[in-house]
């Protein structure tokens, strides 16, 4: 029994929460308590969670800014969707689903490696624009594909898994994604990854293989983005490449950032809430009011970020926040901190922008050892 007590339940709280959530809605759907639109929303939520959690590995834990997450999803959606469309008549539903999930994830992971390679050379802000470019390239290529291959601008028709189970499968996959990411982060490898975020130079000097870990993170993250893409292709009747523009990447980034840097639970909650709000606003604000949806979204976003980050509001934030309220009810040692959480204002190392305005055409400063190598020869 001692081993039972030594389990850190806190570490498993999010699995339990997600599982409970799934079971409740699974039961509801079996007894017929869910409308089709609700089921569709649940599928969307599962996809959003998976995207946010996988992006959170790159942004929150590795500390690199990626603006091309939708690109990986796009690769997964198209390849998984195509595989499904081809195999469906031959193999039947379940094997097709499994194979297309694997194909979508694997191809996206390969692209993750391809994008991870420049990440080794480029600093945060430059990497961000490269990932954005990658996403747009992928999208353009699929948009101009022939109608026989990937459907081109008309979109690729996919076999929608037209049952009430898809969201259950999706949530099971979310649990899998959660387990893998969380296990990775809460291990020595996760420590190595966060050390790169906190101080890359020190991480190198401490013998951390930065190259290896950046590649691992990009691979795992894009693998799950690919899986999410396959789920997306199953949940919709056609895949349109316009749905994977950089705007969508940014939407995922917003979920991660609002959830809190380096907080997987935060990403889950933010993804759920934002998707829920998005869908609900769409149903509430119809007709002439539909235009207000984006306006609300934008205003909420700006206010939340300014409230959470403005240096001038620091005192106010510290005096009134949920954690203090929580601590009042529960004896909580102030020293205790979550193992893998990071404060926003303490993650400045990688995504910093220190390029300087210049008017001179000076290709590079003379103080670069690389250049002197050549001069001395």
């Amino acid at each position, binding site marked *: 029994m001692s081993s039972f007590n030594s389990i850190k339940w806190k570490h498993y709280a999010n699995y339990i929460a997600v599982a409970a959530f799934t079971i409740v809605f699974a039961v509801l759907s079996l007894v017929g308590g869910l409308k089709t639109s609700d089921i569709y929303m649940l599928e969307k939520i599962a996809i959003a969670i998976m995207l946010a959690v996988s992006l959170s590995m790159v942004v929150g834990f590795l500390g690199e800014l990626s603006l091309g997450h939708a690109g990986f999803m796009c690769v997964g959606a198209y390849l998984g969707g195509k595989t499904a469309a081809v195999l469906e008549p031959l193999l039947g539903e379940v094997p097709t689903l499994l194979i297309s999930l694997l194909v979508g994830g694997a191809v996206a992971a390969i692209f993750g490696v391809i994008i991870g390679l420049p990440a080794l050379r480029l600093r945060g802000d430059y990497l961000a624009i490269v990932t954005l470019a990658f996403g747009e390239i992928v999208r353009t290529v699929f948009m101009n594909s022939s109608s026989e291959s990937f459907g081109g601008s008309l979109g690729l028709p996919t076999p929608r898994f037209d049952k009430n189970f898809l969201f259950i499968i999706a949530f099971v996959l979310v649990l899998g994604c959660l387990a893998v990411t969380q296990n990775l982060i809460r291990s020595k490898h996760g420590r190595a990854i966060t050390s790169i975020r906190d101080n890359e130079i020190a991480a190198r000097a401490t013998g951390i293989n930065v190259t290896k870990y950046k590649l*691992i993170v990009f691979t795992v993250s894009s693998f799950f983005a690919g899986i999410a893409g396959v789920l997306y292709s199953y949940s919709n009747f056609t895949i349109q490449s316009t749905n994977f523009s950089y705007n969508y990447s940014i939407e995922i980034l917003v979920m991660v950032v609002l959830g809190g840097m380096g907080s997987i639970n935060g990403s889950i909650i933010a993804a759920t809430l934002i998707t829920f709000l998005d869908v609900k606003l769409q149903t509430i604000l119809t007709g002439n009011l539909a235009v207000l949806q984006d306006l609300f979204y934008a205003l909420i976003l700006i206010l939340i970020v300014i409230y959470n980050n403005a240096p001038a509001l620091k005192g106010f934030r510290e005096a009134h926040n949920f954690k203090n309220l929580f601590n009042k009810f529960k004896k909580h040692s102030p020293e205790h901190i979550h193992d893998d959480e990071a404060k926003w204002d303490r993650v400045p190392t990688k995504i910093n922008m220190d390029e300087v305005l210049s008017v001179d055409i000076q290709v590079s400063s003379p103080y670069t050892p690389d250049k*002197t190598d050549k001069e001395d020869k």
Partner: protein
Amino acid sequence: MSKVVLKTENLGISFGGLKAVQELNLQICEGQLYGLVGPNGAGKTTVFNMITGVYKPTTGKYYLDGEDLTGKNQEAINHKGIARTFQNIRLFNNMTVIRNVMVGLHNQPEFKCGVFASMFRLPVHFKTEKAIRQRAKEILRIVGLAEERNTLSCNLPYGKQRKLEIARALATNPKLLCLDEPAAGMNPNETADLMEIIRRIRDEFNVTILLIEHDMKFVSGLCDEITVLNFGTVLAQGSPDVALNDPEVIKAYIGG
């Protein structure tokens, strides 16, 4: 004469036309406490950066235990056995003290555990995690940070942050430990304490120590041998008493 740990041969680097360090010949023997001193801008930290692979030397070579490490990257050099601290402290600020040290233990062969083993929580993962934590605690005890092990490293006072950096470097099990101004910003009591700790580290970890320092009392009280640099060239080498009384050195410091 005991074994030579670090040997540099005509090591030098130039940035553009500026020769930051030139013709540096060092020989550091096993178990030595070696000091690198010199006025500001003398090229001391540049020497560290070359030895640890941050910069690639433009001339010369250097050897650790007879093995040529010139031109290798930082990670590889750390694996070979050179660890360092930084002049402007570089800790993993979002991690607790003990986790900083645990990162240092990452590459130790006895704590091997594959990525997949961690991802799928194989038993070896739990075993290594426990062992790493245990070892990190021991290291923290030696540098005197055992009490603060669960504090966030950025919340530590300055002197303790320096100690933590030393602990993290030590965790990589180096043959040569390079300390860049370990006593900077410490008060006299802390400095005396640090001298004691550095001696203890050398004895308990059987490590050779190369340090940069401005505090002459610190250097002469601690080091067995020193090299004085000025404008990238060696002014004097030898025991602290001899080297610091060299007329060239006095001229460089006081002016003339």
